[in-house]
């Protein structure tokens, strides 16, 4: 054979998951469950806030899911999963102790260095709070490194509010300005009612020293970005995280491509200034 037998230095395991065990499951809303997981090899996930993993379910395949816990909380990691498709519905039926597969973490995550010393305005809509929470808790666990912290959170209705225990802690934290709203209240709701931009309008922000970190559904971006612009936020002071169908997670399969960018590698976190002219961004 004229063919050279060269040893391949590359990973044969690019598409294979590592086993992880579900340590704890909690139903957090009618459609969302919070899974606490531990990698079976005992290692930490080693993620950055804002990164995602590919979750494998035996016989179902894979789905990209944001890591919701902060890397400052070691040993286990958390995924908050909405039952939306076949894999996530099957995942909701898994008991504590079950094994799933994990590939990753993938993506860039939030730039925690760039944000150091800055005031941060977190704006989360719906399950956009899931990836945002990894950064919020990271900032709160490194309180001295960051400036004023403001958290705005909105959901469609009170039933969809996530992480209620944690929201209470943020609300009681004297170093955090936490405000929330629902689009439509119910008979028990006594808080603010209105879309999330109504919270923004009431806020005294210092756009020169503040970075806005925005994660939510596409429609929310549209109005929040307009509102931030009207408050003189520079485009490069706005950080967003985008949802895409990230299939391989390693910049090859093409599904998450957004113009010239592979969201699974160059994202899912973007500086708004970089992608604002991308027709497919929002």
């Amino acid at each position, binding site marked *: 054979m004229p063919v*050279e037998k060269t040893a391949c230095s590359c990973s*044969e395991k690019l598409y294979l998951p590592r086993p992880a065990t579900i340590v704890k499951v909690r139903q957090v809303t009618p459609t969302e469950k919070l899974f606490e997981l531990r990698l079976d090899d005992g290692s930490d996930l080693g993620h950055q806030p804002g990164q995602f993993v590919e979750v494998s379910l035996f016989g179902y395949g894979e789905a990209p899911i944001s890591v919701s816990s902060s890397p400052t909380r070691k040993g286990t990691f958390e995924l908050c999963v909405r039952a939306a498709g076949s894999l996530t519905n099957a995942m909701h039926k898994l008991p504590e102790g079950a094994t799933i597969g994990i590939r990753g973490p993938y993506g860039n995550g939030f730039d925690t260095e760039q944000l150091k010393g800055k005031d941060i305005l977190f704006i989360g809509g719906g399950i956009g709070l899931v990836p945002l929470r990894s950064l919020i808790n990271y900032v709160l666990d490194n309180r001295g490194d960051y400036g004023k912290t403001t958290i705005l959170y909105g959901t469609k209705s009170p039933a969809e509010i996530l992480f209620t225990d944690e929201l209470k802690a943020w609300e009681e934290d004297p170093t955090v300005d936490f405000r929330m709203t629902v689009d439509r209240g119910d008979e028990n709701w006594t808080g603010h009612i209105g879309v999330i931009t109504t919270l923004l309008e009431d806020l005294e922000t210092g756009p020169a020293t503040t970075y806005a970190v925005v994660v939510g559904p596409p429609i929310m971006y549209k109005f929040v970005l307009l509102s931030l612009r009207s408050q003189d936020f520079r485009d490069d002071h706005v950080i967003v995280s985008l949802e895409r169908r990230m*299939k391989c997670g390693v910049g090859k399969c*093409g599904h998450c491509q957004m113009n010239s960018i592979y969201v699974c590698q160059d994202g899912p976190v973007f500086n708004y200034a970089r992608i604002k002219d991308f027709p497919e961004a929002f």
Partner: protein
Amino acid sequence: MTTHFITDANLTALLDSLAKEGLVLTCRTAPDSEHVLYAPHEQGDAFEYTGFRPAPALKGLLFPPQEKVGEYPAASAEAPEPAAPPVVVGPANCDLRALASLDAVFMADDFRDGFYTGRREKLFVITQDCTNPRLTCACTWLGLKPYPEEGFDLNLSQVSGGYVIEVGSEKGRELLGSHSSLVGDATEEALGERDNRRAEAQKALEQINEEYALGMTRRELLALGDAAEAWASNVSTCVECAACLFACPTCHCFLLYDQKAGDKNERVRVWDACSYGGYSRMAGGGNPRPLLMDRFRHRFMHKFDYFPENNGFEMCSGCGRCIEGCAGKIDMRKLFKALESSVNASDS
């Protein structure tokens, strides 16, 4: 690069020798068809010089349409080593150009795809000059040549009485070194004949593509904002079959899915196509490219705008397979010509 001369009979002897070591695929015109296919070389078979690339692209050998990429929970953590590809005789320069695109994706430094890379490093390619171009051929339209200058192991240029055989790699040099009795020196006459044939092919290709010549770059044309009609008229016959993308030697989208195999799960990689409606749809229902027009445009944006931005060259080899295979008779050259006309129309 060094050139030698090999007679028809000695080329058969060379292929016979290679075929004793493993599978050798050579090009062969299919019976009752204009298509050139690959077939295993049998001892004593004369090499059929087709002067035209085979219908199947090389991507299928390196990145099969469907392939198991692992199983879990793993008995052994390592996936089995993928089978080495055969020696391939007969691809043309367009096929080589396509490999450069695939290399950029699958052999990127950060995440190397082991299945592709393992086969790619072992691939041995004996190319041929393209001297019988067809109306769908577009290599010169892309600024490429119908004969290879790099990226091959050996190349065959048919001349009187045999072939000029050119060495393109260390592997190629070693192979000819171990079969030195089969090759002789390439004479000035033989090299002159090769160059003339190459020039004729180049000229024929330029004539074929003359009516599609563009005054602007493809990237510039894709950036035009007011070309809706040009896009609409070219997508109108698309039936979303994705033949263009599966036939394309550079397209590399794939899907990963799992299937049960006893008490294990196999992870399978299968070709996918960005023209399918569900391609980028998310679980929550959002879809960045819901319209066929969005996806049709994405195909060309990826090949001629995004990929060049990231890699410095267009993701198209000009092989014409997408034009040949299209049920709706869509021709990318006509699309770009229409885009250019839309500029001229808005200028006047």
